[in-house]
């Protein structure tokens, strides 16, 4: 449990208020003549103020960030059951390999002959992701899942254009993550919602009607954000393909079936993989992630450049290809994240991946089993890696999902996801992931059960939570109304 600090940590700008010159970092000594910037640069372009922050000593910086770190919850502290986020253990071996000097110091514009190790790593990870998904090709370039979605939809757009087939719409189920419609819009398509059926999966009749020759692609999350597998996935793909469309699969939930089922067999044409979910790279307080996209044969020609090509034992780069959608970002992707993902995949292997998805699904079902008596389950199909409850039973006592979430903080757990799926009002979307011991999952369940009791017996206690955190409930409405997003000297 996180406690309120005895001394609040000031902003770095509030330290050293007298603006005393203090020894900061010692720069390398300069053994060339100093240059007056005004003699070689246009004087009107020079900075007149002091750049950046006050001078502080090295230990002040270390203390500052040590104290700040104490205010954070983290995977290493306890269960972090954010649904669709797959907050699993970040193996320390990953951190070690990603810090190897041969990787960290490699410059992306060195001649290819000097970076054969880096190019081989990219090539190996590409082959591994193809093997895990049963797909024909892959790009490791996208910086995150949403970025991968955009790459995938742009490839679909390019493939359709190449066959002279211009289309305007992308179908997105109403249970989809918000990035799906946003991505469709950014790729120049109109996002059209497909309603879910009563069981929470795609309504086939509705899809049949919406799937016209205006539709470029259908974006599906498998399993969907309710943790339910689309039982008619093969039929859906056939329908879409028959009508000239392509299937975009949101791979955010790959942890549910990795090592057991193949998107290639499901009929996917493009699917992003969040390396920071399924393949254990750290979430880093919100990035950097990585969102490689695996593709079917139809999309291989349109993969982004640059691409790594293997000729015998030599790896080279292809910079240009008119069929490509072009580069999605600078260079080859979040390379040091790719190092971590390959470390993980080679450590687990085909056998370990099966165990991984097995325990992930097992834990979600344990949570479902333990909490089903206390929380309402809006869709009761078989759960895979996550289970979605709602707050119907608690709202009778005027306790809402956000209150339950805040009360969980007092019990020392991170809350579940609540912002989606939008089709569940008051959602509590729980994904335990496979890393923790069973006792940790059980302790979380016990906390949830205790809160359900509190909601009946002492709802005020829940509504006013959290009580034992570094700050009490934060006024998010005020933050938006009285926007203050930086410190200024006038604050002093």
């Amino acid at each position, binding site marked *: 449990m996180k406690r309120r600090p005895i001394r609040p940590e000031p*902003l770095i700008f509030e330290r050293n208020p007298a603006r005393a010159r203090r020894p900061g970092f010692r*720069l390398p000594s300069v053994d*060339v003549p100093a*240059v007056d*910037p005004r003699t070689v*640069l246009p004087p009107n*372009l020079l900075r007149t103020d*002091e750049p*950046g922050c006050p001078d*502080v000593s090295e230990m002040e*910086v270390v203390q500052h960030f040590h104290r*700040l*770190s104490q*205010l954070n*919850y*983290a995977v290493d502290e306890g269960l*972090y059951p*954010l649904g669709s986020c797959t907050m*699993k253990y970040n193996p320390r*071996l990953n951190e*070690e*390999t990603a810090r*190897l000097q*041969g*990787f960290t110091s490699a410059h*992306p514009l*060195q*001649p290819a002959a000097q*970076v054969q190790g880096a190019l081989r790593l990219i090539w190996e990870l590409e082959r591994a992701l193809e093997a895990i998904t049963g797909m024909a090709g892959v790009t490791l370039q996208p910086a*995150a899942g949403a970025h991968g979605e955009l790459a995938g939809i742009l490839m679909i757009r390019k493939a359709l254009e190449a066959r002279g087939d211009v289309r305007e719409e992308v179908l997105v189920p109403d249970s989809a993550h*918000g990035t799906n*419609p946003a991505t469709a*819009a950014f*790729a120049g398509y109109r996002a059209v919602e497909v309603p879910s059926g009563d069981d929470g999966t795609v309504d086939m009749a509705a899809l049949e009607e919406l799937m016209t020759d205006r539709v470029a692609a259908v974006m599906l999350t498998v399993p969907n954000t309710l943790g339910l*597998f689309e039982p008619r*996935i093969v039929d859906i793909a056939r329908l879409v393909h028959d009508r000239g469309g392509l299937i975009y699969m949101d791979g955010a939930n790959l942890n549910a079936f990795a090592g*057991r089922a*193949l998107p290639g067999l499901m009929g996917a044409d493009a699917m992003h993989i969040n390396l920071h979910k399924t393949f254990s790279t750290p979430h*880093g*307080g919100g990035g*950097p992630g990585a969102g490689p996209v695996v593709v079917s044969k139809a999309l291989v020609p349109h993969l982004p450049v640059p691409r790594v090509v293997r000729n015998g034992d030599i790896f080279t780069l292809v910079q240009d290809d008119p069929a490509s*959608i072009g*580069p999605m*970002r600078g260079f080859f992707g979040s390379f040091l994240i790719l190092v971590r993902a390959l*470390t993980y995949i*080679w450590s*687990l292997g085909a056998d370990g991946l099966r*165990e991984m998805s*097995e325990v992930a699904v*097992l834990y979600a079902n344990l949570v479902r*089993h333990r909490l089903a008596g206390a929380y309402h389950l809006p869709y009761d199909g078989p759960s895979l890696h996550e289970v979605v409850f709602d707050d119907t039973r608690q709202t009778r006592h005027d306790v809402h999902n956000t209150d339950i979430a*805040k009360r969980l903080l007092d019990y020392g757990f991170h809350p579940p996801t609540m912002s989606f799926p939008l089709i569940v009002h008051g959602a509590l979307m729980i994904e335990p992931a*496979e*890393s923790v*011991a*069973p006792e940790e999952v059980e302790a979380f369940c016990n906390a949830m059960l205790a809160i359900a009791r509190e909601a009946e017996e002492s709802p005020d206690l829940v509504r*006013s939570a*959290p009580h034992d955190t*570094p700050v009490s409930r934060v006024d998010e409405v005020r933050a938006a109304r009285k926007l203050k997003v930086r*410190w200024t000297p006038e604050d002093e």
Partner: protein
Amino acid sequence: MHPWIGAGDDDRRRILSEIGLGSTDDLFSAIPPAVCVDRVPLANGLDEQAVRLELVAMALANLSPDCRPSFLGAGVYRHVQPSVIDAVLSRAEFFTSYTPYQPEIAQGTLQAIYEFQTLICQLTGMEVANASLYDGATALIEAVLFAHRVRRGKAQRVVLAETVHPMYRRVVRTYADPAGLEVLMVPAGGDGRVDPTTLRAAAGDESACCIAVQSPNFLGIVEDLPAVANVAHAAGALAVQVVAEAASFGLLAGGGAFGFDVVCGEAQSFGIPSGFGGPHLGFFACRNKDVRQMPGRLVGETVDSRGDRAYCLTLSTREQHIRRAKATSNICTNQGLMALAATVWLETVGGHGLRDLAAACLARSEDLKRRIEAAAGPWRLAFPTSPTFNELLITGPGEGAELARRLADLGVLAGVPSRTWGGSWPDGLLVAVTERTTTSEVEALMDGLGRVS
């Protein structure tokens, strides 16, 4: 069972029995058998030492620029790397946490981002900065799309100076074409800078949503920012500055001082390893009046229920999880840990330190210019009278790519071939120096240039 998985065989049997299932297969009964496999075509898992050895072998197969005189830049620079940075980034409280959706248990991440936003505002001279973007190239395309929104979708033209990093320009094209934007490129002038009059002509009247320039530009040369801002505004377009070498902020004022509407770019220079190209750190800063069109995450100050200062994510109504198809960007996250690295770096180096660091870059660069001008042989400064910060284009006896290879064979990473992505400028080497460059490295470079003549 693999040690990174929490439950052993006994645990699994017990839990299966508790939830009333007979076997593991029952857990997956919802997945149609037609899409299932018994195993994926991948080797079985390796032990820790075996994996370590494989990865070490791959790392050793790269020639580290740390062990050679290196003058590679072109958007990725080798600056000082205080040990404090990785010490902070290695704290699990930072690197194993997620996006700070629950502010009560994420004040550490939130306050660090708030400090990052403040630092970016101070450096760029802008009023508001977001919590970061993927990298410099994607920051530029976000700036273009932002300008399109600010102009309410009425101006489809995007004017880019050719002296913007060619890789960034390519990324802009990837996004701009499907969005229906028309990208016009204005070639570099004879002095390696873009001519504001030509920019003005390309922008037309009220037709362009933005004019974007990079300064220092791809050729290392400082552009005439006040003139660019003036012509952009005269054309009814937003003025966008993109920066690929953020260390230049130590000496050069950001575009905010000259009326720019967006200053964005790449902040890899602030404590982030080159890492074969990523992850790096995009930044984005704009004016208060346009904040609701800004892409990406934003942290704001507020109070908790006891009235004490606290921070949280704010203006999320711009974002995809609320706005869905109408979001300002499809970006779902920021580059959190990299923003933390830059924050720690800037706070460690300090304000005076950043100025001294930039002054050292400039002094080293001017020293190199003098040496090249003084040397006998075919090597020349391509733009001898244009003002530069820490990077310069030199030409020699042949094409840049070939020269780079020959110098690499002599053990010197002499620079990035200037026409790696094409360009109207001379074909030579872009040579970058920093405060880490030593005189002996410069001597090795000059010696190498002398031998390739």
